[in-house]
């Protein structure tokens, strides 16, 4: 048990502290910070997927009026060695994916920079491109571990025998396509090198994460670099680490002392330079007895990584935890391709993996002639099947029951293709959600008192989720003062060390440090502190994961309409019910959870980065070609949560809500399309051709 805070401000729907600044355009995002006489950078990108740069001729670019600098491997600053080879740009002549950074032009205006970049002449020695992912490749390999530090493979009991002896079996392959994060604010960096000191105004999910990665790479002492990020217009994981464009901007700035160099990636560039969700191929086998109790779960994943740098998505990991089954096997195999480097996209692992598992569960429910809500209830478990540990709090059943009640599930006719309104076939579906609760070590907060107010400082970042607001509420409750007495300072690497906004861990990690600092402050300075009293404290280490399995759960319900003539799919209604610990701010939490569900809807119906295997590039690399749900796609979407406080994890009682909204959403919609049409589609997105009567 932790010493749980008494909630006063927590739990109230405090309006976003930055709302007025944002709606009036006064909130400075990275690119908005005013600079004197800035210069503008445009990258030069490789137009082959594999080979080497033989010659790079910048003569015409250098001669263009207004060009201040051209940068290639011939004149770029030397970087230190780094394990992250994605960052090692302009150091060698090798090309490992199409779009890789091989140079830059800096000019007086962005238009001149862009024009000059087009004038750079590059000759290549090109090798054959290999960008085809399939499960039958002979060169698939087993990574040492998968993202999050999880084991690559697990095998418990005797899966094959258990499957063979199961009365009911599901054996299918489910796929999710390559998908790209497309935050509204593109990745932007402004770099200023002055007096042997580099300042980066960067659109990033962690100022210290950027600082820790970039300072040594650029051969700088820690005090020579400062990263500033007051506001971020969405990240979803793609800004969870610095990528190569930050290195490019920094290198250019170091060649132009005293002049701020501004870089805003174009939407097209974002499709190659800042990560994406790997396509996944999931072979799922379920074995159950006649009343639906799972005997075996096997989830074997094939996905891709880049030749330049390995990223292994933990796609099968949720299948280790969600349901009780005595026999379980999970595995991950990778194909190394000539493609851009995959990275985090909202709920890496859980998001694609739970699509596979939860569509398979729907198929199992039908095979067992069992209601899909009831099937999930029957396979609930009090302990984590993988570790044997009890959950800190698990109420998947409560989410399913509450959701079924509110959604009107009770009268559901399980037979597919039975409901029609004009040309539209109507159906409903359900899926479970899960996401681990994490708290990151390495967070420190500082509290200062003066003039009746408390300044709370920590290098956290608000990527649009509401950190400015929720963290102030936590600080107020920890200091037992009104939230109006809190001055929060975040988004600057000069502030005390904080971890990245990722893995739904932000509030738990930063909030825990703020509470620790507040309690230390009170212990040191009492209820009536002297002016300018100050205390700093670190989030204490926790052994909770030795004793508990901390996970959140949820249930998602969707109603769909599928046009019997044209195959168009529309989603008139979605409801998510979540068990996620305490909600710090119901207003921002509702926005985050429904935002995740909308992103799941978008994944279900639209999102698909189309790879042209001949050239290894994403063909539909803009927002006209890569479809994200529009307002017209999003109808009645609601999220609620069970009233609970998790007393084991942190003093706030939270478990994190950033990712769980997307998990299971696409499966609920896919299952609803089966209920509407009788057509089982095992891949995403659910485009009209799947439902078309040929």
């Amino acid at each position, binding site marked *: 048990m932790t010493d749980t805070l008494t909630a006063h401000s927590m739990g109230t729907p405090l309006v976003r502290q930055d709302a007025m600044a944002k709606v009036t355009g006064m909130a400075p995002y990275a690119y908005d910070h005013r600079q004197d006489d800035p210069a503008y950078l445009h990258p030069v990108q490789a*137009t082959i997927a594999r080979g080497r740069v033989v010659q790079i001729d910048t003569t015409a670019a250098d001669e263009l009026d207004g060009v201040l600098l051209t940068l290639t491997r011939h004149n770029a600053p030397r970087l230190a060695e780094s394990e992250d080879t994605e960052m090692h740009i302009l150091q060698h002549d090798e090309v490992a994916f199409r779009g890789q950074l091989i140079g830059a032009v800096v000019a007086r205006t962005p*238009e001149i920079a*862009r*024009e000059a970049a*087009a004038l750079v002449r590059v000759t290549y020695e090109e090798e054959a491109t290999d960008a085809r992912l399939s499960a039958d490749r002979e060169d698939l390999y087993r990574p040492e571990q998968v993202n999050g530090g999880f084991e690559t493979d697990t095998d418990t009991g005797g899966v094959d025998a258990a499957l063979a002896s199961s009365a009911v079996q599901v054996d299918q392959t489910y796929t999710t396509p390559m998908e790209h994060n497309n935050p509204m604010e593109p990745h932007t960096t402004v770099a200023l090198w002055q007096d042997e000191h580099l300042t980066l105004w960067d659109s990033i999910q962690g100022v210290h994460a950027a600082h820790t990665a970039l300072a040594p790479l650029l051969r700088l002492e820690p005090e020579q670099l400062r990263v500033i990020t007051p506001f971020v217009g969405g990240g979803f994981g793609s800004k969870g680490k610095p990528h190569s464009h930050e290195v490019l901007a920094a290198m250019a700035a170091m060649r132009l002392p005293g002049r701020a160099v501004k870089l805003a990636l174009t939407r097209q560039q974002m499709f190659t330079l800042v990560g994406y969700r790997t396509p996944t191929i999931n072979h799922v086998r379920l074995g159950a007895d006649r009343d639906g109790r799972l005997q075996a779960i096997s989830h074997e994943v094939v996905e891709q990584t880049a030749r330049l740098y390995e990223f292994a998505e933990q796609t099968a990991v949720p299948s280790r935890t969600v349901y009780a089954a005595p026999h379980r096997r999970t595995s991950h195999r990778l194909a190394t391709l000539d493609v851009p480097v995959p990275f985090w996209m909202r709920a890496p692992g859980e998001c694609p993996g739970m699509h596979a598992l939860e569509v398979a569960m729907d198929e199992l429910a039908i095979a067992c002639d069992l209601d899909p809500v009831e099937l999930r209830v029957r396979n609930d478990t009090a302990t984590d099947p993988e570790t044997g540990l009890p959950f800190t709090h698990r109420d998947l059943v409560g989410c399913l029951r509450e959701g079924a009640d509110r959604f009107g599930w009770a009268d559901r006719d399980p037979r597919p293709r039975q409901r029609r309104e004009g*040309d539209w076939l109507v159906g409903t579906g359900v899926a479970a959600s899960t996401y681990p609760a994490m708290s990151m070590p390495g967070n420190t907060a500082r509290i200062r008192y003066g003039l009746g107010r408390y300044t709370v400082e920590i290098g956290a970042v608000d990527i649009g989720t509401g950190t400015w607001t929720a963290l102030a509420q936590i600080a107020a409750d920890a200091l037992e003062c009104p939230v109006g007495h809190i001055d929060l300072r975040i988004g600057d690497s000069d502030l005390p060390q904080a971890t990245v906004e990722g893995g739904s861990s932000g509030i738990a990690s930063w909030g825990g440090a703020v509470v620790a600092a507040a309690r230390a402050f009170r212990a040191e300075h009492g209820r009536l502190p002297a002016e300018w009293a100050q205390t700093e404290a670190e989030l204490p280490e926790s052994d909770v994961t030795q004793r508990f399995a901390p996970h959140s759960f949820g249930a998602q319900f969707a109603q769909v309409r599928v046009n019997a*003539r*044209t*195959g*168009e*799919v*529309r989603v008139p209604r979605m409801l998510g019910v979540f068990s996620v610990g305490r909600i710090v701010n119901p207003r921002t939490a509702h926005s985050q959870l429904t935002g995740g569900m909308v992103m799941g809807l978008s994944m279900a*119906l*639209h999102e698909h980065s*189309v790879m*042209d295997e*001949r*050239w290894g590039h994403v*063909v*539909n*690399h*803009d927002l*006209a*070609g890569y*479809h994200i*749900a*529009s*307002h*017209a*796609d999003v109808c009645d979407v609601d999220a609620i949560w069970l009233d609970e406080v998790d007393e084991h994890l942190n003093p706030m009682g939270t478990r994190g809500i950033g990712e769980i909204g997307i998990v299971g959403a696409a499966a609920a919609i896919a299952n609803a399309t089966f209920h509407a049409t009788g057509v089982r589609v095992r891949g995403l*997105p659910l*485009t*009209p*051709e799947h439902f*078309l*009567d*040929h």
Partner: protein
Amino acid sequence: MRPFDYRRAGDVDEAIALMGTSPTARYLGGGTNLVDHMRLGLETPDLLVDVSRLPLADIEDLPDGGLRIGAAVRNSDLAADRRVRERYPALSRALLAGASGQLRNLATTGGNLLQRTRCPYFQDVTTPCNKREPGSGCSAIEGHSRNHAILGASDACVAVHPSDMAVGLLALDAVVRVHGPGGERTITIDDLHRLPGEHPERDTVLEPGELITAVDLPPTPFARRSTYRKVRERASFAFALVSVAAAVDLHEGRIADVRIACGGIAHKPWRARRAEEMLVSEVPDEALFERAARAELDEARALRDNGFKIPLLRHTMVATLRDLTLETS
């Protein structure tokens, strides 16, 4: 983006004269497509002649009962015009199915007709494309072709025309008025856009320097019974997978006259004349519509990714004709 000159023309003659001063000059309407192309390096004009403020922004009644739409009329204004909504609902619906509110506020009637294909290879200067660079090859034929043509394509190009408005205009037998160095002429909307053949670089039959000044709609009384159905996976802000504009003249339970135009399937808005011929003087019936649609699609050819468009267009055509005839007759 390359530096360029910008001139705002005071009248049509001045615009045409300015165009004559440079072979790479371009007319600028709303700029919603051209400016993107300049950013992407597809277009590198040395002069933009702004025609968006020429006195061509009116919608006038014609003596014969038709309408004249000035080339500078914004898409949003045209869609909202009461005469258009009452007399030519297919046009209003086609306009509102296109782009987004912000784009429709900018885009002009003339510019909409002359927007270029959204084939991703055409828009990416690093890939071969016969339309952008004649003779370089077509990347789409063996590449990502889900959005490409099923009718009227050639070995040189399989791109589709993206406009919704043009499909609506085609079903309404619109006539395009053009001014050029050689004077004024009219072109039927069906003749304005070309099939690709050996010259996919030419989208239209317009000659260099020619400027669209207006679009005339003939007084087709039965166009009041017209509609536009656009099929797309996203509910808004997406180009058509397929679309159908249709107008039907029902007389004593029979189809006296009919117009059908299709979008998203060819290098130009596609007039379904074969289907129209089969419907005239027949009693409306779903089986009849099905036969007509199949006949129209008889010569349809699928690429790797777009085979679904053939049944999709068939179903959409049938549903559209059904909605126009059976429910109200």
